[in-house]
């Protein structure tokens, strides 16, 4: 009888532990960096420079959102961004891919525009700047083209 109680307790403990772990991973998986409810917009880049899912989105140096997905669309990169509902992005905002430091990870910087029109959920940030490929640039200015 006693042995049964011990095994039962251990088993229940493990089940509770696994449930907690599962809850934690689902919660984190949804990337609650946004905190409040968010909306999606997308932008097309000719070169993402290796931007990853979960990369940060900055405005004025402040982390405001996350990259949800990066897919290839007609040989260009279609990046879906998650932004908080309270953040309004103007129609002429520019999304650029920048590097943390000079050779660090890539992130997206959005500079707000001057248009009164706002980008709606599911809308597109039309103005984009691709990642600058440092090696290409160096080779271009050192060696030129054949």
């Amino acid at each position, binding site marked *: 009888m006693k042995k049964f109680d011990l095994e039962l307790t251990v088993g229940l403990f493990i089940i509770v532990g696994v449930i907690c772990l599962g809850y934690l991973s689902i919660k984190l998986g949804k990337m609650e960096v946004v905190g409040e409810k968010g909306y999606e917009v997308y932008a097309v880049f000719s070169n993402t420079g290796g931007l990853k899912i979960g990369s940060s989105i900055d405005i004025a140096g402040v982390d405001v959102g996350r990259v949800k997905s990066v897919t290839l669309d007609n040989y260009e990169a279609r990046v879906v961004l998650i932004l908080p509902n309270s953040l309004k992005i103007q129609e*002429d905002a520019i999304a650029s891919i920048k590097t943390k430091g000079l050779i660090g990870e890539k992130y997206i910087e959005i*500079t*707000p525009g*001057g*248009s009164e029109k706002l980008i709606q959920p599911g809308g597109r940030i039309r103005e984009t*700047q691709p990642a*600058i490929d440092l090696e290409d640039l160096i080779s*271009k*200015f050192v060696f030129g083209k054949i």
Partner: protein
Amino acid sequence: MKLSYLYGWSVLLLFLLGVTVPVMAGEPEEKIKQTTDKILSILTDPALKSPSKEGERRKLIRSAVDERFDWEEMARRSLATHWAKRTPEEKKEFVHLFADLLEQVYMSKVEGYSGEKVRYEGERVDGDYAVVKVKIVTKKNRDIPVEYRLKKERGDWFVYDVSIEGVSLVNNYRIQFNSIISRSSYENLVKRLREKAELR
């Protein structure tokens, strides 16, 4: 009998529309070509080569650029979040100062033209917006990729941004203007632009 007559006319109309669309598709690139060719002809005109003709040459280049560049749109996009707070007079003044700033910064570069070739690498049209890709081939055989972003207004295409090597002109000034305004004031920015204009 009447119905087939209508049908015939509507088919003809649709056919004509279908035929005209491809012709329209080349429009933004055509507009860029026109302006570029105009400027190149001014730069290579022997009658305008002498230093005494500098003023006249610059005026001609500026008016060719004025035809294709939407200065107000570029100024608004560059001033960004600070645009809405400006009075109509301030906005008008800023557009002038902005256009003059760009003329000052880029005129000497344009005048340094020495036979570089311009290659047209295609365009992409998305409704009222278009991107025209161009490559400037320098003497040292380097390719400089340039992208013109145009918007259709009043039936014509106007440039609202230029990207060189993937770096946007509007974004460049947007960041600088924002920095100056947040560190000092809009009035200070205008003062600096006015001072620069006086140096011409």
